[in-house]
């Protein structure tokens, strides 16, 4: 176990160094949510009062969903960096050392998660002047949920990168996953507004539960069962997908 920690730390530091060498990309991957914040959220103000969007509280409903969007899209494309490492033989070089196999992925996923949390905090701060009121404990707890979403999406991205080993099919695959998953989670507008068939479709989407849980946490409704539901579903998904990614890594050496 201590070797796993040791190796994971080495891999985390190595990947974090790479990221910090060109910090501009940390901000570039926040561009989409910030655009939504500045150019779309103002539209919601006048919609306040419809089901799921209480008047005067549209910001409080929108921001937790926006952070889920950041968690989904911000980490979905990390697989490209892995393809680079596969092509230059770096991953093979790691694999012939005694390094623990999960550490190779875990070090990357943790790096992505730390960057994601930094971005989430930054977006929350930027949203403050727009009238965001958030329960402090709820915000902290929700960060854990975003981290789990980050683990999930990063693992999906790495898993496909390890299978394809080239860039071309990776972007379409990831887009095919992220777009429906975000539309069906009520990030932009609450799904309560949707026709029944669309709501039903949303209910098979794990991230729908994440958005509902995040909104409950921001509002400080800690007795809401949706929070527990969200954590259980996303935790299970994160573990499942990470295992799948790990299998893809081990399959590279099959």
């Amino acid at each position, binding site marked *: 176990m201590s070797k796993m920690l040791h*190796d994971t730390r*080495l891999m985390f530091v*190595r990947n974090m*160094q*790479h990221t910090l*060498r060109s910090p501009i990309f940390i901000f570039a991957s926040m561009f989409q949510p910030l655009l939504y914040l500045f150019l779309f959220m103002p539209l919601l103000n006048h919609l306040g009062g419809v089901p799921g969007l209480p008047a005067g509280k549209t910001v409080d409903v929108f921001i937790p969903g926006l952070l889920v969007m950041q968690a989904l899209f911000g980490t979905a494309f990390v697989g490209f960096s892995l393809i680079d*490492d596969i*092509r*230059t*033989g*770096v991953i*093979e*070089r*790691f*694999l*012939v*050392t*005694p*390094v623990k196999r999960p550490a190779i992925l875990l070090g990357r996923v943790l790096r992505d998660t730390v960057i994601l949390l930094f971005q989430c905090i930054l977006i929350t701060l930027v949203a403050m002047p727009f009238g965001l009121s958030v329960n402090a404990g709820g915000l902290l707890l929700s960060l854990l949920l975003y981290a789990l979403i980050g683990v999930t999406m990063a693992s999906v991205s790495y898993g496909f990168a390890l299978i394809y080993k080239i860039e071309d099919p990776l972007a379409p695959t990831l887009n095919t996953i992220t777009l429906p998953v975000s539309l069906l989670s009520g990030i932009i507008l609450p799904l309560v507004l949707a026709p029944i068939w669309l709501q039903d479709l949303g209910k098979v989407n794990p991230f729908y539960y994440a958005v509902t849980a995040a909104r409950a946490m921001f509002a400080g409704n800690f007795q809401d069962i949706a929070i527990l539901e969200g954590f259980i579903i996303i935790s299970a998904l994160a573990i499942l997908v990470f295992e799948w990614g790990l299998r893809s890594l081990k399959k590279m*050496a*099959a």
Partner: protein
Amino acid sequence: MVEDLVIETKGLRKTFVSKEKGKKKEVEAVKGIDLAVTRGEIFGFLGPNGAGKSTTQKMLSTLLCPTGGEAKVLRYDLAEQQEQIRQNVGCVSQAGGADLASTGLENLVLQAQLYGLDVLTAKKRATEFVERFQMGSFIERSASSYSGGQKRRLDVALGMIHHPQLLLLDEPTTGLDPQSRAYLWEEIRKLKAQGVTIFLSTQYMDEADKLCDRIAIIDNGKVIVSGTPAELKSNVGGDMIDFAFASEEIAHDAETLLTNKIDVEEIQAKGNSLHLRTKNGGNMMPELLRSLDAKNLEVQTIMFSRPSLDDVFLKYTGRSLREDERK
């Protein structure tokens, strides 16, 4: 004396399964290879592109799971004791595997840490290799700026950082300029002098010939012959001598004259030249010339060549390795 075998394989096989249009397609990359590599030698694995060299090396370094057969590396079982093999074998792949976005030094330190060295020891070890491979002038630059030769030096240092007993090198000099190549050969010989066993795959005959103690020639997933370069070449037959004469008639007369000489294994006139193969061509030459002179068959030019590994390859496969190289 019991030989100390560092690599021992029996019937090592690898079949890749790929799906094409729903149909499973099997490709036999390695079709049952027996190898016995002794401690302290430089063992060459010579063959054309696609012969199965890299696949075999990847199996030996635990990167690929064999489909069948047995293998022991440093007496550890390849199927059961991968951890021990990884800890004690060094490996340099064809791609090299240096992290180009980092500096060479960062690469070396991390690699040492991956083998379990603490950070201080890792830094010390890295510095040792920087001095030994004369990388001081560039090691603190990003590896993306290195020349081919510099990068190769870093790749080999990365494979050696944990002082392995066995080093697997996959085509280490492919694409290198002659100077870097000579430098690398020198380093490999030094490693041998320190007792490291080297298993080196190559598609270059001169590399196998000059650098390796023993070689196995691989083609189409199978070892076709193995031995020391000298043994292999002497198996092909004797030295080749080509005489050129002023005319076809003279060449023909010379053929008739020399056909019955002892030690002449093969003789054939073609146009105005005469081609013959003989054991110990160097000793035979004066006698052949005297005989020709005695009959006034005037020789215009003589070409003399010892058999090369290409002749060995040609004998066993019917193809020339040089032709494959050109493709």
